[in-house]
């Protein structure tokens, strides 16, 4: 299997699994327990929290462990909005559903939600963003990098605009960024990024599934969304997933900055070769793009058919076509680029990873070309 779906999830690194194993059947204590097994688990928990804090250049008290990216995002957005009680949340049309649907829920609860459009390159228009801030705005949530098209948003500039607005109007607009796809590839110093909340996820960085973290700047008050024993400083009740947390920390320790350089080269080669095929467009900016993301639309062929034919050839990829989604609606991200649902139906995403080599890409290219040719032969629309 040539796995080119690393944005969906990554393989858990064997070293991560090794680090986690003692915390299932040996050091299985509950970190809240006073006895030695509990204390050992507690020590592992706090060591791991320090690893995450160092990675984000923050204090360990600013790290809340959750069960994944979606929960981190829900906790930041809902937890903060509900604490304030009313107001407006500004986000973009291409956010992950965890952000968009949290906002939809808040809208039902009486909050105002503004979803800003993006350019045809998939980037936020900073001027339009600046204008969108109002006296009612309480929170901005903009993703660091997009999960479908890999576009990188100018987080520092967005933070600067918010800070200027706050200064000028004596407002207190906070900024959350969904960094689930960015982790491992982009700078993660929260003090440099000037964000108030940052969500990250274990299963996108060769860590286990079911673990994530939320950075919440010291002093910000939020309401919990899960209630119980008051773990995680009261913000996230429930016995801590110690093995998962240890795994997340190990995955972070294994991040190698050189990886981004290697993957960028492979990505550029892959994109260049794909664009040589007739009737292909790249979705999202070429320059401001994650090192692992390739997303193209092949005119006149439907994405699910391509993904299933690729699967038959041993290649794992994904599509924004409606036919592959549970909701039967095409990708909101690709549709937002040029208001073209057709392009979303035709989109294929390849996301490379640590183990991807040039040979894998050459095989994927050859198979993709043959599949596109064959499906175009039976297509009822002309490929442009």
């Amino acid at each position: 299997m040539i796995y080119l779906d690393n944005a969906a999830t990554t393989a858990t690194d064997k070293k991560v699994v090794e680090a986690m194993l003692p915390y299932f059947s040996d050091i299985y204590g509950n970190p809240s327990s006073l006895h030695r097994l509990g204390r050992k688990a507690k020590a592992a928990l706090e060591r791991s929290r320090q690893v995450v804090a160092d990675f984000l250049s923050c204090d360990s008290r600013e790290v809340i462990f959750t069960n994944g990216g979606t929960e981190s995002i829900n906790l930041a957005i809902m937890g903060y909005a509900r604490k304030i009680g009313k107001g407006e949340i500004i986000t973009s049309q291409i956010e992950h559903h965890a952000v968009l649907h949290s906002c939809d829920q808040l809208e039902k609860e009486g909050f105002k939600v503004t979803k800003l459009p993006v350019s045809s390159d998939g980037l936020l228009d900073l001027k339009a963003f600046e204008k969108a801030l109002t006296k009612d705005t309480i929170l901005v949530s903009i993703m660091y990098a997009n999960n479908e098209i890999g576009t990188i948003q100018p987080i520092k500039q967005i933070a600067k605009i918010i800070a200027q607005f706050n200064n000028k109007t004596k407002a207190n607009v906070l900024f959350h960024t969904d960094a689930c796809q960015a982790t491992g590839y982009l700078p993660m110093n929260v003090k440099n990024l000037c964000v108030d909340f940052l969500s990250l996820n274990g299963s996108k960085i060769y860590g286990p599934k079911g673990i994530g973290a939320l950075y919440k700047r010291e002093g910000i008050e939020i309401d919990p969304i899960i209630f119980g024993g008051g773990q995680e400083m009261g913000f996230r009740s429930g016995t801590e997933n110690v093995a998962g947390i240890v795994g997340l920390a190990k995955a972070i320790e294994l991040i190698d900055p050189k990886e981004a350089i290697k993957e960028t080269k492979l990505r550029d080669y892959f994109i260049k070769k794909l664009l040589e095929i007739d009737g292909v467009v790249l979705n999202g900016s070429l320059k401001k793009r994650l090192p692992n993301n390739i997303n193209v639309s092949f005119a006149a062929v439907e994405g699910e058919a391509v993904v299933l034919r690729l699967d038959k050839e041993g290649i794992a990829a994904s599509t924004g076509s409606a036919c592959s989604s549970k909701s039967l609606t095409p990708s909101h991200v690709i549709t937002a680029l040029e208001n073209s649902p057709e392009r979303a139906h035709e989109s294929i995403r390849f996301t490379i990873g640590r183990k991807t080599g040039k040979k894998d890409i050459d095989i994927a290219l050859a198979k993709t070309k043959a599949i596109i040719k064959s499906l175009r032969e039976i297509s009822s629309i002309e490929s442009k």
Partner: protein
Amino acid sequence: MTGTVKDIDGNDWLYSQKVEDHFFSPRNVMREGMSEDEFNGIGEIGSPACGDLMKVWLKIDPKTEKILDFKWKTFGCASAIASTSILSEMAIGKTIDEAAKITPRDIMEELGGLPKRKIHCSVLGDQALRAAIANYRKSK
């Protein structure tokens, strides 16, 4: 991708072997170089924006009104491709009255079932067939 995986509601998550067969080796596709002139009923349904566009060409014997040939092309997913492919086999040899009675359920049964979320995709071939029959009747 054989349909042995079920979701929590007990529905097939993946495709049956029959669907797979027709998806990977579609029958009766209108190929490049074939002449449209020999067909006397043409129907088109769907739109690329909706992710499906189906076109059907029928060669109907004017005397017996039997379908002598059925060719098709589609911009569609695996189940749209497979259901139209199997529909072409079902329709050839039938009179247009008989063929017009083929329902999406008939197609689905012939395919050995479809995942629930994909059933709507099987409707298009059937609609395009009806459109082609209507086109033949109108131009008669």
